């Protein structure tokens, strides 16, 4: 860093190459991480008796690969300057990210029972000021990718090697601001930006492509000068390959991984529910869901 710039809200450490991956090399397999993330999420869902649990179960594999394969971070220092930034554009997926942050030991597990309660650090919609490891305030959809563009530009100015990941949803493809940001990321050749789209096919008013058809999605991002991959977002091996390819892609392009996921993945009786954007779960079903999840645990 030659400009004498402030290092943001970090501990003042100079930017370092994000080759440090404290979580990688762990002996815990990614499938086990994904299982635990789902489990944390279900337990939080039970606390409130409601929530965006289908999205959380669906995105858990992507979060496991993000936090235990791809991202550089320090659990005890969530604002470490050398970290990769993971932005949750979809604020209502907070339950999923909290589950990942608990698994990553950024949030203590015993705080899980405070989910959605008064004065909790884990509000139902993700807000940066509340939660360690929550980089931005989401919730008003279509914000994340634009903020990611600014952060990617900022990291480049600082000579940082860190990546910006922005997790957004197929529903956010309806928002024009997403495409303003997509066009600019290609124009600025932001090769430090990795977009992750949860293509779960469901939004508030029904099936995503029925609300507004965004397909063909890959060619759209390719036309906006992005390096595009589309994978089964519940296939951990495929996700690992895609994250590696995104990180190591030699082209000066932003990278996007379109992750086709299954809502409520891992709990078949919830997967089978048709209207699952805001899943109705009866009080007795939480324990049943946990039991089913435990049975299907990947050893």
């Amino acid at each position, binding site marked *: 860093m030659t400009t004498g710039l402030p290092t943001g809200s970090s501990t003042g450490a100079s930017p370092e190459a994000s080759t440090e991956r404290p979580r990688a090399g762990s002996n815990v397999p990614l499938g086990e991480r994904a299982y635990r993330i789902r489990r944390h999420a279900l337990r939080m869902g039970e606390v409130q008796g409601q929530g965006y649990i289908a999205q959380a179960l669906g995105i858990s594999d992507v979060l496991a690969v993000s936090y235990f394969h791809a991202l550089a971070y320090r659990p005890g220092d969530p604002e470490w300057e050398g970290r990769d930034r993971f932005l949750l554009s979809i604020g209502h997926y907070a339950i999923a990210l909290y589950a990942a942050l608990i698994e990553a030991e950024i949030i203590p597990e015993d705080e899980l029972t405070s989910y959605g309660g008064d004065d909790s650090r884990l509000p139902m919609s993700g807000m940066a000021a509340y939660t360690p490891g929550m980089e931005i305030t989401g919730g008003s959809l279509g914000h994340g990718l634009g903020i990611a563009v*600014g952060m990617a530009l900022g990291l480049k100015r600082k000579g940082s090697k860190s990546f910006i990941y922005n997790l957004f949803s197929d529903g956010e493809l309806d928002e024009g601001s997403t495409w303003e940001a997509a066009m600019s990321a290609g124009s600025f050749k932001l090769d430090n930006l990795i977009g992750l789209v949860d293509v779960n096919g469901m939004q508030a008013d029904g099936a995503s492509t029925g609300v507004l058809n965004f397909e063909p999605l890959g060619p759209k991002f390719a036309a906006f000068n992005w390096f595009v991959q589309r994978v089964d977002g519940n296939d951990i091996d495929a996700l690992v390959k895609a994250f590696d390819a995104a990180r190591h892609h030699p082209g000066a392009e932003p990278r996007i991984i379109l992750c086709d996921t299954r809502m409520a993945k891992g709990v078949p009786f919830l997967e089978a529910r048709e209207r699952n954007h805001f899943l109705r779960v009866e009080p007795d079903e939480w324990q049943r869901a946990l039991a089913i999840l435990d049975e299907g645990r990947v050893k």
Partner: protein
Amino acid sequence: MRRSKYEKPAPRAGGGAKTSAMIASLAAPGQRTKPAPFGHALVELAGTRPDIIGLSADLSKYTDLHIFAQAYPERFYQMGMAEQLLMSAAAGLAREGFTPFATTYAVFAARRAYDFICLAIAEENLNVKIACALPGLTTGYGPSHQATEDLAIFRGMPNLTIIDPCDAHEIEQVVPAMAAHQGPVYLRLLRGNVPLVLDAYGYTFELGKAKTIRDGRDVLVISSGLMTMRALEVAEALRDDRVDVAVLHVPTIKPLDTATILREAGRGGRLVVVAENHSVIGGLGEAVAGLLMRAGVMPGRGFRQIGLPDEFLEAGALPTLHDRYGISAAAMAGSIRAWL
């Protein structure tokens, strides 16, 4: 009330006054001006503040940011005609420790990018400086470009500081002050050849402070932005009528300098007139009215507002429109005479 488009207007000699160009100066003929005070002040400040970054949404030339872009091309980002992105990306740069100055027109920031300023910037109290040209009625291009309600829109946004400077002298001081302030700031920017007035009064800008530019016994004009220079002209004009006019300049709309306003409004038996280049709804006038009401202060000779009507304004030449909507010095003097 707007005329029906099916009603042919009466012919005017010479076709009437022409629509003022988008880059037209607000300066009266012969008035002292300074070119692009915002752009030059930002360049000067950037010399000692490497964290300052400029962003524009395809309007750098029309917000005087091109001066900065020419001086520091590597610190300028052209975001394209995309105001939602402009504000989100500014938030991202602020998150990484930079101090972005994002510029566009006031209409686009207020109407188009509000949610992004609110959630991506203000909710996190990020250090983004939003400098917007064409505040209020400063263009004759019609409602698409006339930000007559930007203060009403922005006053409700928590954390946001709002500044409505009067002239080039003030803008030069506002730029370093807004950069020094921690948190988001919205600046109603006067651009191009900007009138130079307040230097003659020995005025200095302080963030959050209202200042008495001149004192007077009969009328207290509380004003912001370009209306302060109008008020000073009115004060001179009314002197011939033996009306003594005080002018309290309130460049910081939010947070409001409530102590000074209450003290001045409560002094003696004066008519209090709030003058603003903004709709009479939701701007400085109603802010002051609410303040006085809450404090139980009733000015001795009443309270009046000079501002733009609650209408979509017409297109045309700026001097014509300022007269028509009551914010020219002549119209303002007429209003005050009638109220006394």
